[in-house]
């Protein structure tokens, strides 16, 4: 008898909706990396001397480092001399002074991605900095934010207009000696977002950066630096997409957050880089270093990430809890489908007294996806009364996917409390059957079950993005029940 076959593991396979390419004339530097390329990038960006010196020092440090291989990942060899390190849409003359002068092709691209750069449109409560390949193409609501003393815009602009702030904070959380990819980023980073919130100011809107890789064979190396001065608050979001290409593309970003006394930074990511096709061909290598520094007492940094894209995601948004009573939070959903791999988690380093950290990680693996949680809770000697709690749950769809959990705990203070919980479950055929027997389609049922599983993390996202993320989780699993 021909029962309509609807097996859970058939739900894998989907269309990537952001895979188009924008036709723009580009200004690129020759393939490969040496000191001349770095000088060229620095010159193109019209940087002060301290920046070039910093880049060259980073490059020299990078040359002495070896590519790391400790993650639970299979990575095709990367030829660092075969990457184009700078690609920008060609500017007419001086370059756009305001959003009205931005190339209409670029505006259309962001429109298509659902991120209109017109201030009056849909994202009225969100200021957007749009980064296209190596450069920022425009930032919305800049003038309005400036009235409150808030600096928000591209990194290049910040280097020109606020060199003293950049010089003071750049590399102060993630030094270029930190790791191989951070060093590479420091040497060649081309743009990114910069944000400074002055003392006592509560940023009135969500700040966001939308990263788009467009050009072929280029790497994207952006750097984001956010500083919340004493008692300031900011909520920042980043979104990412890229065209579908058969080659892997490297994205090695660095994000540094600095929270002074009583400041609170909330950083949310919805990462949807091109994940590769159903056979695992192509896709972005997302190798990112993200770290926050709770520098002042009673400060707080929260990372929330929804990672559904990239062929490989390799990142650990971390918090250095230096100030007394500082709070670090990490809420993560990582979904791997088809041949995607993720090795992600966090590091919470308790340095100050009574510091607290919370880690909630939800990993979903479908198809041949491999999902690894790797996290460190470390309590140093002086962290009297520190508390850390982590919870890692994995959900498996089908029987060819994998979930792995590597919790590391190091405690050097006897008054600390560190807890870790982990669970692994499978979307049951019986959960699915139950929903379907109530008239709900298998696709909707899986999306509902997965969203339920991720609820504790999704509720941490700002409203508009929570809705986006929920849809994204549904789309990312499309085809994993047939």
């Amino acid at each position, binding site marked *: 008898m021909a029962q309509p076959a609807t097996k859970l593991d058939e739900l894998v396979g989907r269309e990537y909706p952001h895979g188009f390419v924008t036709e723009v004339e580009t200004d690129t530097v020759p393939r490969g990396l040496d000191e001349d390329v770095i000088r060229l990038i620095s010159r193109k960006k019209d940087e002060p001397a301290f920046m070039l010196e910093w880049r060259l020092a980073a490059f020299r440090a990078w040359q002495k480092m070896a590519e790391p291989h400790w993650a639970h990942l299979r990575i095709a060899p990367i030829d660092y001399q075969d990457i184009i390190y700078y690609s920008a849409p060609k500017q007419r003359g001086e370059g756009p002074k305001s959003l009205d002068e931005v190339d209409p092709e670029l505006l259309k691209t962001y429109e298509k991605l659902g991120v209109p750069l017109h201030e009056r449109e849909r994202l009225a409560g969100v200021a957007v900095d749009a980064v296209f390949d190596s450069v920022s193409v425009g930032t919305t609501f800049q003038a309005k934010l400036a009235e409150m003393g808030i600096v928000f815009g591209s990194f290049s602009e910040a280097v020109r207009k606020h060199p003293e702030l950049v010089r003071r904070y750049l590399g102060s959380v993630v030094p270029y000696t930190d790791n191989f990819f951070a060093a590479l980023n420091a040497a060649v980073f081309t743009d990114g977002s910069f944000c400074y919130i002055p003392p006592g100011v509560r940023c009135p809107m969500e700040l966001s950066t939308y990263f788009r890789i467009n050009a072929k064979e280029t790497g994207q190396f952006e750097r984001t630096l956010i500083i919340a001065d004493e008692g300031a608050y900011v909520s920042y979001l980043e979104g990412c997409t890229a065209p579908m290409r058969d080659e892997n593309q490297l994205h090695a970003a660095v994000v540094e957050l600095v929270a002074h006394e009583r400041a609170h930074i909330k950083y949310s990511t919805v990462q949807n880089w091109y994940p590769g096709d159903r056979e695992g061909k192509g896709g972005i290598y997302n190798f990112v270093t993200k770290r926050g520094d709770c520098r002042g007492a009673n400060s707080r940094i929260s990372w929330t990430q929804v990672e559904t894209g990239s062929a490989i995601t390799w990142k650990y948004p971390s918090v250095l809890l230096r100030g007394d009573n500082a709070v670090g939070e990490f809420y993560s959903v990582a979904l791997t489908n088809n041949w995607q791999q993720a090795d992600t988690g966090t590091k919470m380093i308790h340095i100050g007294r009574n510091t607290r950290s919370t880690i909630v990680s939800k990993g979903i693996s479908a198809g041949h996806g491999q999902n690894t949680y790797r996290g460190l809770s470390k309590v140093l000697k002086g962290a009297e009364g520190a508390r850390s709690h982590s919870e890692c749950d994995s959900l498996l769809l089908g029987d060819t996917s994998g979930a792995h959990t590597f919790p590391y705990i190091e405690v050097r203070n006897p008054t600390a409390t560190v807890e870790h919980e982990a669970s692994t479950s499978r979307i049951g055929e019986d959960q699915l059957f139950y929903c379907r027997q*109530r008239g709900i389609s298998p696709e*909707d049922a899986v999306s509902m079950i997965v969203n*339920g599983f991720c609820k504790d993390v999704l509720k941490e996202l700002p409203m508009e993005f929570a809705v986006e993320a929920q849809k994204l989780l549904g789309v990312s699993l499309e085809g994993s029940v047939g």
Partner: protein
Amino acid sequence: MDNVRRPQPLLQVEGLHASVDGKEILRGIDLTVNAGEVHAIMGPNGSGKSTLAQVLAGRESFSVTAGGARFLGHDLLSLAPEERAREGLVLGFQYPVEIPGVSNVYLLKAAVNAVRRHRGLAELDAMEFLKLIREKMQLVEMPDELLYRSVNEGFSGGEKKRNEILQMALLEPRLAILDETDSGLDIDALQVVAEGINALRGPGRAIVLVTHYQRLLGYVQPDFVHVLAHGRIVKSGGKELALELERRGYGWLEEAPAAPAREAEARAR
């Protein structure tokens, strides 16, 4: 069994054979259910009662090896479980499934709207749905709080079964199959559930009650009682048959040792 000519039976099962992992559990079931009727399917553990309910509801872990079933003129077995539910065949689960993080009200609304879409009705918005569900909840005396908890998570046995009946009341099936809805209930919960089932009765709707004990039938009077043993209906009768079973047990109707079938059914769960 009665002389009135009916236009078309709701459900017509003929010579249905089904197996799981190569073990045959249903060995030729014939059953006709008309609108307005309540049928009780009884039988000892391992006789295939739950398998029959699940096969009719579309559970894919069973394979039908012979025979067939028609529901409202459709070839039932060619429909996916969600299509069966939308057409009006809904199963009340013996073991309602927990879905962490999904609120009960969310699932219920998604279900109601999926069924409404299929029937060409406008979807209900949040306010309309709340009004509907408040009305139906009174039927099963369900506290509001259970709407906002995760589906079946941390529900007591009685709450789970009431929730199943609530789903029936919301989805308004043509044929409700209630699989051991009475199991694990104390006497108060049993009465509430029974009242809920009675409220579902109507001329356009049929109910199939799968049960081990006569207990529930004291509250919900069936029109027909069938006894299943070793995957076949070995006896059918009126409600008085249930009382006879209560007195005499199932032994006198069983012809062969039930062990193999029981094992297989236990695995199928």
